């Protein structure tokens, strides 16, 4: 009550300089702890009303600044901090996913490498088996061809021998027949007939 009354008095003194000394004097002349404090500040050069006004102005300014500058700035900072934290979290998540993807990629690469090695080994084994089979088949075919050729040669040889033998036999018989036909006389043939009759009778 006294503080505000003193403040009002100080304002009134600014408005009416002539009346102020009297009022200030009246107020200065008043007693109490407030007056003592004011006197003490006054002795240090502190003008209490002016200080109060400045405090009010400062408070208003501070309020305005806080309301329209600091608070939005703080909000923006908080939003930015949140975005930064989110970005960091996202970056960490991305790093983690990247690491996981890298691990998965490495695993797939290793698996693919193993699979490729396995396929290559199987292909080599298959090629080797195919080559071996082809060799065996060629060997068998060669053996078969040789056997057939030998058989054909043997058959030709046997056939030729048979033909030669038959031809020789035919020539021998033909020659013998001619010789017999030329050299057998009736007496000899008659004896042959008698011998045949005896053979028939047996």
């Amino acid at each position: 009550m006294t503080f505000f009354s003193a403040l009002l008095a100080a304002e009134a003194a600014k408005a009416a300089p002539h009346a102020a000394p009297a009022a200030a004097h009246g107020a200065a002349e008043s007693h109490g702890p407030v007056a003592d404090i004011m006197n003490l500040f006054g002795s240090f050069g502190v003008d209490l009303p002016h200080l109060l006004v400045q405090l009010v102005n400062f408070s208003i300014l501070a309020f305005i600044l806080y309301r329209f500058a600091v608070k939005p700035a703080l909000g923006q900072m908080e939003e930015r901090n949140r975005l930064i934290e989110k970005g960091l979290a996202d970056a960490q998540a991305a790093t983690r996913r990247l690491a996981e993807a890298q691990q998965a990629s490495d695993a797939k690469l290793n698996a693919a490498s193993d699979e490729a090695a396995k396929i290559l080994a199987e292909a080599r084994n298959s090629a080797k088996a195919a080559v071996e089979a082809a060799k065996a088949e060629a060997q068998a075919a060669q053996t078969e061809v040789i056997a057939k050729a030998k058989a054909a040669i043997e058959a030709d040889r046997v056939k030729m021998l048979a033909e030669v033998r038959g031809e020789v036999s035919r020539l021998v018989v033909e020659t013998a027949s001619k010789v017999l036909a030329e050299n057998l006389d009736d007496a000899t043939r008659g004896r042959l007939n008698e011998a045949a009759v005896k053979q028939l009778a047996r």
Partner: protein
Amino acid sequence: MSAASVRAEAKRLLALSLEGGAVSSDRVGAVLAALAKSRPAHTLRPLLRAYLANVRRELTRGEARIEHAGPLSTADADAIAAHFTKALGRPVRPVARRNDALLGGFRVRVGDDVTDLSASLRLATLAKSLS
């Protein structure tokens, strides 16, 4: 008259023509005379053909057709015929014909049976065994 009945009739006429298991010329004459009297001439042709074939076949069955190289005595021919008469159980008479291509020995045919004791057959057998 069907072919089967003609064959049966010819067979019956052949049976009438046999005397002692051999074809008799007298009986054949009698059969032909009877046929000429009993049937028209234009119906006898197939029957007479079948009868002729039967008679020929029967005569062939009763002959020993001997092909021989060189001389063959009558005694030897008779001996050959006697052999086949005994073997076949019917009279067989010899019919000899010289064939020097046989070289030596003889070949006998009685009906469908052939007995070859010729040198040419032996040479042919030898040639076959050598080839």
